[in-house]
């Protein structure tokens, strides 16, 4: 039986009068890439923000690596966060720091007794693995959107997480860069043995990177399964229109 790394049951979250998540159930298994699809504002990002404790659910449980996130003390939550890599939609690179300093920042604060040589080695390895060794001394403002995404992923990988969360990894990128990012997501899984949740509304990204899809509509998952299972027999018109729009079918 496959090991569950994330188990969500009956998750609810609202902002004022707006109910965003209305009893969401979801499992993520070790080593799999799960893609969460949904319209803008459907609560996809809210889901993964609850997972890392940036937001708190109103009801339901969020069990990550055997720990219920909402009941953890700040210290325990920080320990759990070290096992989760979060790649932000706009990369969220610290714009007053160089690429090297961006990568160094989480490392020196969370891993003690590292020598300068070990830090440099780890940074160079990661920049190599995301294909940007030449950017080490550049500022984030000097990087393109795709490069920023890659550095953002490298920064999360520096702490060797078990789970990767990608928030709209291909948003605002051209098709060729999107393909590069999709390949990077697959490479990260192969090389670092991570389990991932990819939040997107880009079906090409979903098809390439996802083992399973989950479509979030009206605060609940309306369809779940492999790409073919979800879109070949889609009963919900909105799920169908998702496919039709992305693959330009009328």
């Amino acid at each position, binding site marked *: 039986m496959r090991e569950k790394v994330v188990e969500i049951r009956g998750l609810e979250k609202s902002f004022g009068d707006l109910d965003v998540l209305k009893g969401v159930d979801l499992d993520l298994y070790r080593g799999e890439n799960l893609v969460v699809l949904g319209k803008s504002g459907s609560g996809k990002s809210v889901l993964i923000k609850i997972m*890392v404790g*940036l937001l708190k659910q109103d009801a339901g449980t969020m069990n990550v690596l055997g720990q219920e996130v909402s009941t953890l003390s700040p210290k325990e939550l920080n320990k759990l966060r070290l096992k989760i890599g979060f790649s932000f939609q706009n990369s969220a690179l610290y714009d007053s720091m160089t690429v090297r300093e961006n990568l160094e*920042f989480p490392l020196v604060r969370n891993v003690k007794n590292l020598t300068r040589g070990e830090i440099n080695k780890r940074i160079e390895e990661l920049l190599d693995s995301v294909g940007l060794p030449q950017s080490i001394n550049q500022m984030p403002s000097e990087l393109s959107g795709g490069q920023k995404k890659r550095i953002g992923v490298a920064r*999360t990988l520096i702490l060797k997480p078990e789970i990767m969360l990608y928030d709209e990894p291909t948003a605002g990128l051209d098709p060729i860069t999107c393909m590069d990012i999709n390949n990077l997501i697959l490479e990260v899984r192969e090389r670092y043995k991570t389990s991932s949740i990819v939040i997107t509304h880009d079906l090409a990204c979903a098809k390439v990177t996802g083992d399973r899809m989950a479509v979030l509509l009206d605060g609940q998952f309306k369809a779940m399964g492999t790409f073919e299972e979800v879109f070949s027999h889609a009963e919900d018109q909105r799920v169908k229109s998702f496919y039709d729009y992305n693959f330009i079918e009328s």
Partner: protein
Amino acid sequence: MAEESHDRKPLLSKKIDKFFTGLADAWNFVRRFFQEVFLPPYEFKEVIHQCYRIGVESLPLISLTGFIVGIVFTNQSRPSLSEFGATSWLPSLISIAVVRAMGPLVTALIAAGKVGSSIGAEIGSMKVTEQIDAMEVSATNPFKFLVVTRVLATTFMIPILVLYTDFVALIGSFINVNANELVSLSTFFVQVFESITFLDITSSILKSLVFGFTIGVVGCYKGYHSSKGTEGVGRAANSAVVISMFLIFIEELLSLQIVNAIRAM
């Protein structure tokens, strides 16, 4: 009419509600600062970096302003004193005014404009671009790294800048006095140090600490609570300056009352 008053009431109560909620938020923010400042890990490197930014980068503006204040205040005071044939009192008058009030006030107001706005804008833009969230998910306490360091830096650096402004303003004043009354440097500064007391200097430093703390806390609070979007960042920077300046004037007034009471004892 009845409909009009019905419309106004919730608007007024909403504003009052927002005001008191904001006040409670600000109080919690200050309380959190005092809780976190004594707890490890200590970000010494970042505090020194911020001290450098706040102190050294403010020097040119502070120098120019202090110097001009010294010259202008001396020039404006001369006619009144000369009516009584008391222009020889100029060094005393200027030193008391500069050390007791103008030095701290001018420095704090300039720092509120330059440093307060830059802190508000920097933290505000980090907030809207999710950099603060990124820090948090990488198990780093953003409050400690961004807020505690900046508040400590402003609290330490403003008194140092105030002493520097006092000195530059007195130099400006000396140049003016020397040109008009032919007073030597040593005579000028002997008169200056005879006029100012220990209480003047300590009260000036103590209130500068309070001004620095105010500038840091208000800038960080406004940035940390800025709403989404670039408009929110601009608003955070702007309100950081306005609120800091307003509080600095109130604090100046309060410190004046306290020092006067001490002097009367």
